[in-house]
């Protein structure tokens, strides 16, 4: 399905929905490169607590971000059942560790509601909108801020 025409409100976008903890999230499929199972990472010294390390993605080195930890929901204890969503942020590939991927939804942009004004900084920083979903509510994540810009120098 492709995005149709003119008014941005009528535009359809495809969202990959997934769960982290007990919550549901989604990201625009355009940033998603692939989805794979979790494998144990090689730890990176002195990295932020939400960067679990790096894994081998067909010969390339892929950093893995624990989304739960990033959203301050507590670190994950992943197993083979967890899923890595490989996303592209600018020129970088980053793998997001999530619990499981649910579905791919076609969503009309007009259906996206603005982020509710809650006290959580996190919500404000990372969530760019919410959607009603089968299981309740789905928060749309803005990928760009997942990895801070000065990542390399974070001590």
């Amino acid at each position: 399905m492709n995005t149709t025409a003119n008014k941005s409100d009528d535009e359809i976008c495809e969202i990959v929905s997934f769960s982290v903890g007990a919550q549901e999230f989604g990201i625009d499929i355009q940033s998603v490169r692939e989805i794979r199972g979790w494998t144990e990472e090689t730890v990176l010294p002195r990295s932020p607590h939400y960067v679990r390390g790096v894994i081998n993605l067909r010969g390339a080195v892929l950093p893995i971000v624990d989304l739960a930890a990033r959203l301050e929901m507590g670190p994950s204890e992943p197993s083979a059942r967890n899923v890595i969503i490989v996303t592209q942020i600018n020129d970088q590939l980053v793998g997001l560790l999530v619990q499981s991927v649910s579905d791919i939804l076609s969503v009309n942009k007009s259906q996206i509601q603005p982020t509710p004004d809650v006290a959580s900084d996190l919500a404000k920083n990372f969530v760019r909108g919410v959607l009603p979903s089968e299981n309740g509510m789905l928060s749309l994540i803005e990928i760009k801020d997942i990895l801070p810009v000065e990542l390399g120098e974070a001590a």
Partner: protein
Amino acid sequence: MDMEEIKQTFFVECEEQLAELESGLLEMEAGEADSETVNAVFRAVHSIKGGAGAFQLEQLVSFAHVFETLLDLIRGDELEASADVVRVLLRAADVLSDLVNAARDGTEADESVWQPMKAELDQFINSNGDTSPSGAESAEDEVPVQDGPDEFGFEPIPISLDMFETEDDEAAGEYTVRFRPTRELFQSASEPLFILRELSGMGMATIECDTSNVPTLDAFDPTASYLGWTITIRGVENKDSLHEPFDFVEDQCELEITAIASGEATGALEEVSEDDLSPPVLEEIVTSPAEIEVEVAADAEMADEPKVQAQVSDAPAKVAEPSKQSANAAPATIRVDLERVDRLINLVGELVVNQAMLSQRVVEAGLTETSSVMMGLDELEQLTREIQDSVMAIRAQPVKTLLQRMSRVVREAADATGKIVRLRTEGESTEIDKTVIERLADPLTHMIRNAVDHGLEMPEKRSKAEKSEEGTIELSAAHRSGRVVIEIKDDGAGINRDKVRSIAVEKGLIGADAQLSDNEIDNLIFLPGFSTATEVSNLSGRGVGMDVVKRSIQALGGRISISSRPGHGSTFTMSLPLTLAVLDGMVVTVGGQTLVVPLTAIVETLKPKNSDVHNMGCDAAVVAVRDSFVPLIEVSEKLAFGEERTNPSDGVIILVETDEGKQNALLVDSIQDQRQVVIKSLEVSYGHIPGVAAATILGDGRVALILDVGELVQHVPGSSLNSDQPMMLEAS
């Protein structure tokens, strides 16, 4: 090939011509030029002009024409190449380069620059009493004899060469014959010995045997052919006679006969016109059709750099001459798309990983060491290594062009600042991976500008200090312990430590009462935020600070440091990895993690006893190694791999030495293995981690980090590794 591609090729060749031009002019400046140099310089400009004509690049043609005319006078000994003249020529070369770039980019060159330059050249020509119209449209009239081919613009240099080659070359009759029989030759009962005998009877011959392909007995096949010969023979009347001994075996061997000193391949004596499709060199190669690919490969081995386009296709093929007209036979070369080379390198990298994984799995499957599978794997590893080395070598280029580019930077910087500067370069033939060379250009340019602008003093100040008015910058490149070391040394005033210190305090980079050693102060200039924007010169106007330079070097996997002597000058030292792709390393376990330590840094490994370890202060320790005490660094602790501290007697010590020669003892849990690994950049996929140089993928498919030993040991033992935080903050 379409017009666009041909045009692109022309511009690539212009680059080469410009490099030749510059290098020749520099030789003239240094008084080291001979007539050959002057000819080469002339030819370079002449070629550019010719090609430009074909593409109707008017401005370029007209400027090049005047330039060439002046050079013609010089090579015809009608005008002396005095120092003044050469300086003018150098500037003209810079202008020519700008015009070429403008033509290539489709922009307009700065008229206010090139028109006056052209007029200046004209002046030299006219003051010589020569009647050369400076209007360049009728270019053909002015250009010396070998005019015809010019119109087509594709003339390879060999044409002009014919005119200037000493006629003696052919008469001297010195040739190199390369002969390598195939197994078919033996099958047909021919005997190389007899051929060699016959050949050596034809003149004064020296015979060299290449035995490098002879395998050990276990791999030896008596029906195969492993030997090759290189025969240098002198005093032969004509080249054709050299073919005679090989009459019966032409199809059963690789044969190449080249003349020495004229640098030409056989049959290139006639004008190579547009119609000449197969370069003469290939003639020899086509002796044994089945061997064509092998021959080219063999030639590629002998060649130095990709230069010639040896396409046997519609396009006029060319035999590009080695630009140095020295007495070497023309190396056969081909020009290859860089993308293809990169793809090849990536594939070879994957091959290495795959081969490692395969070996690992075989071991895990429980096959014994001596089984034929294991032996086959060993051979595979050897082969893979060789392929990798060969492929890496393709990308390695001499730094010569980079160093030469710097001389222009120095000229311009000197002009802009009113200083008198001389650039000396050393180690032009040092080879570095092409990408590294490209990414070094900017940082080097910046450092050189810096050296001229801030390092060197004004001439009056220098003579007051009893130094020569002319300042010298020495730029050198060399291979040292598995890395490339580049140094920029100036004999200027050195770092003004007081000033640097006060700026750093002013910018909040260090505490006002911080105690710093001289060297620590010198290195403050690399801190982000340090750049002295207060000193805006029209040179450093872009405001790029030394911290950006340092970051660029680090991104290449390199290190940079500075040392300075007040009144005497400063030296920047950069150390870079030889290749961005591959590394020999020791695979170790640290804190449960697998790491790789570059072999080049390792001096030896030891199994320490607790009694050898001594504490110093509260946080530091040393280990006794024979007669000295070496600082002990616990790697797991340095990299914060967890709480557990390794008991020295339970672990292994790897003694490492940094580029500067300092030794440290790294304590690791155990050593797993030693192998060659493919380097995967971490910068690109993640960012810079202090103490980590890069990552690699091991045989089991997992990522392992490669240690940056220099960074790891740099910090005060026991303190945390904070990137870009000056040590001083922790000194108290």
